[in-house]
């Protein structure tokens, strides 16, 4: 069958302004949107530019706006979105070329929340692992799934309105460490999140949760951060 693929195009070396190109291509219901982009690039227009790597939803390279919603192009099939497909770059980050956006602001926010394990206490005397109960491990399991694709942050109206807002992805990373019973820097991170552009900017819109290709309940995680901030407890 044939699908119509309408793609956002912008080449800064040639175009004054962005535009859309429409391509009619043969596809199957089970084709990934990424497969369609590859077909266009391979046979119709080699200049079409996008990021991709793993092609099965674990590397986070190809988060895009597909029919107005954020998805990973490699984890979205034709049968999920229909035969008229519009593909656009993520909103809220500067477009560099076609579907490629500048990820630096996104990663800079990530780096602000101390996105690494901190525990300066001596290691167990036997040199083995720090112990952690299955329950304590389960406490932050959900937020360890994040692949930093930016689908959540770039679906967030609060982020669109204020790019200084840390955004859902950075908060998810903070959650992953704050609720890890082995980590010792929860209060430092909560301090960072309590600043103007921290969790206060989350208005519980749930776009992030809807957008997450890893099914992380992001709004819930942010709610837990807010609760921790209010109560001072990490239950």
């Amino acid at each position: 069958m044939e699908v119509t693929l309408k793609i956002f195009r912008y080449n800064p070396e040639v175009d004054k302004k962005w535009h859309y190109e429409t391509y009619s291509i043969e596809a199957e219901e089970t084709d990934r949107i990424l497969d369609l982009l590859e077909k266009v690039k391979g046979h119709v227009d080699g200049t079409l530019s996008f990021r991709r790597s793993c092609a099965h939803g674990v590397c986070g390279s190809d988060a895009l706006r597909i029919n107005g919603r954020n998805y990973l192009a490699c984890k979205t099939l034709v049968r999920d979105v229909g035969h008229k497909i519009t593909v656009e770059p993520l909103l809220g980050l500067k477009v560099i070329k076609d579907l490629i956006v500048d990820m630096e602001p996104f990663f800079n926010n990530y780096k602000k929340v101390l996105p690494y394990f901190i525990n300066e206490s001596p290691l167990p005397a036997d040199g083995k692992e720090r112990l952690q109960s299955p329950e304590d491990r389960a406490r932050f399991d959900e937020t360890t799934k994040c692949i930093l694709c930016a689908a959540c942050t770039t679906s967030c109206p609060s982020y669109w309105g204020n790019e200084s807002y840390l955004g859902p992805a950075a908060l998810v990373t903070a959650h992953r460490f704050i609720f890890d019973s082995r980590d010792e820097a929860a209060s430092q991170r909560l301090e960072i999140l309590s600043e103007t552009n921290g969790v206060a900017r989350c208005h519980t819109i749930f776009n992030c949760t809807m957008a997450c290709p890893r099914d992380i309940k992001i709004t819930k995680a942010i709610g837990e951060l807010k609760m921790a901030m209010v109560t001072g407890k990490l239950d």
Partner: protein
Amino acid sequence: MANIHQFDVVVVGAGGAGLMAGLYASRGAKTAVISKLYPTRSHTGAAQGGIGAALGNLEEDKPEWHTYDTVKGSDYLGDQDAIEFMCNEAIDAVLELEHMGLPFDRTPEGRISQRPFGGHTNNETGKPVRRAAHAADRTGHMILQTLYQQCLKNKVNFFDEYQALELLIVNGKAAGVVAVELATGELHTFHAKAVIFATGGHGRIFEVTSNAYAYTGDGAAMLLRKGLPLEDMEFFQFHPTGIYKLGILITEGVRGEGGVLINGKGERFMPKYAPTVKDLASRDVVSRAIYTEIREGRGANGSNYVYLDVRPESVIKYAALDGRTNPDGSPYTITGEEVLAKLPDIIDFCRVYLGVDPVTQLMPIQPTAHYTMGGIPTNKYGEVVIDDKNTVFPGLYAAGECACVSVHGGNRLGTNSLLDLVVFGKHSGIKAAEYANQVDFQELPGDAEAGARSQFDTLRNGSGKENAFDIATEMKKVMFDLVGIYRNEKDMRSAVEKVRGLQERFKQVRVTDTGRIFNTDLLNTWELGNMLEVAEVIAHCALNRKESRGGHSREDYPERDDQNWLKHTLAWKKDGNVSIGYKPVVITKYQPKKRVY
């Protein structure tokens, strides 16, 4: 306008091996890590089931057993000194990851949880042993994230989305690399005393593969172009369980949790091929068993796939038949909820790509091109060695999937890839920093970028009569059909010819994107050139090895031949042709014997 950077050590690639190397090298020397992807996009993140170490957290286990299993898994082609080294280091390596914060799953006592995996056994009973330390079915993701996070904590210098194009060699020593910055198209020279390649594998040369688009053999091809050899390139692993047609990996952990393989007649077939460990035999054994079932007409629906079954009722039934028990001796059982908790990503992949729910339905699977056992020859410190005497090439290191130490020999055991990249990433980083602190910079030639520039010019100036996408599609099909799981002289001769034909056609390709900014057309075309070079070497080496060993299975030479072939292949590209040499396998404790699972 030249962009020149000077670092003691430059690491190329930011997957698990590159990050580990970067972390360790930067402790002793000024280090940069350059990567064509954002580090967290690297393919280590796709590894699922676990990292092997004889922690013995759930039952008795020993590094010696891990060593023997790895030697046996390698079909005796692995170097036993290096294997022993890796398996002894494994315990500390996994503990170090935990100390870095890696969220391993836990036992009720709070220790790192472990699951059984193919080829890992209790050497006394021959039964599967719980050796794979895991974090759900995203262990690689956790390793990649944790190492990247530790690199940030330790302020490692990253150059993200920089594609290395050429290794610089001056006075017979590594002197740096030239890379293109994707965002601007500008070339950059990284002048260094030591260079570590951690560039990953090249599974993308095959039609059905679990590998990322980025897996195009860049490091291997860059060294071939410098006249350096590659080792054991005929050995490529086909993982038994890829999602039918797509090749997406379904971890061996599914079978570790009790899943079984079922043919089109509804029969569990692995007991025929591996009576003791059954579905948890080595990957080469299981992949061949699946192909044999399909060839003999027992594929599902008469087609070229079989089923993987992890439905709780099936798991419980077969576990009872196998006499499998929990650590406390009670019969092994599992619920649908536990399947979901232990294998969430697998369930997700099956639902998304197949519309199948593994808790209640069978998963259609076929073998998928998965792992590069061969690669850049190194010793156990990650130093690149270039001949049969293991002569070290000064200043050059390799680690992870691009390297061939060789710890995997003819067939890698599941969980040993993650172990490999952590252990050898670390040691290459340490060694490179030590070396860099003892030597001076080599003086670079006036125009260090000339070689890289001319590679790009060639791709821009072709006649345009040929299409790169078509050439890539044909190469993948040729390699999968003719140099795949089962091989023979006629097919491989044809493959060598066809790949050479494709290389000729490749000369007629012209990159259509003439811009500088994010020219992915140029980059992908350059990568295709690498894949064609690597594919040719693989086909050539496979044709040359007249025996069956590990992942290299020849219909015309079905037996292992230790008399003539217990040796590593070395392959050089000289004057446009592949030339072959050999080097001995290091055998310490384990004399080759027949491999039975």
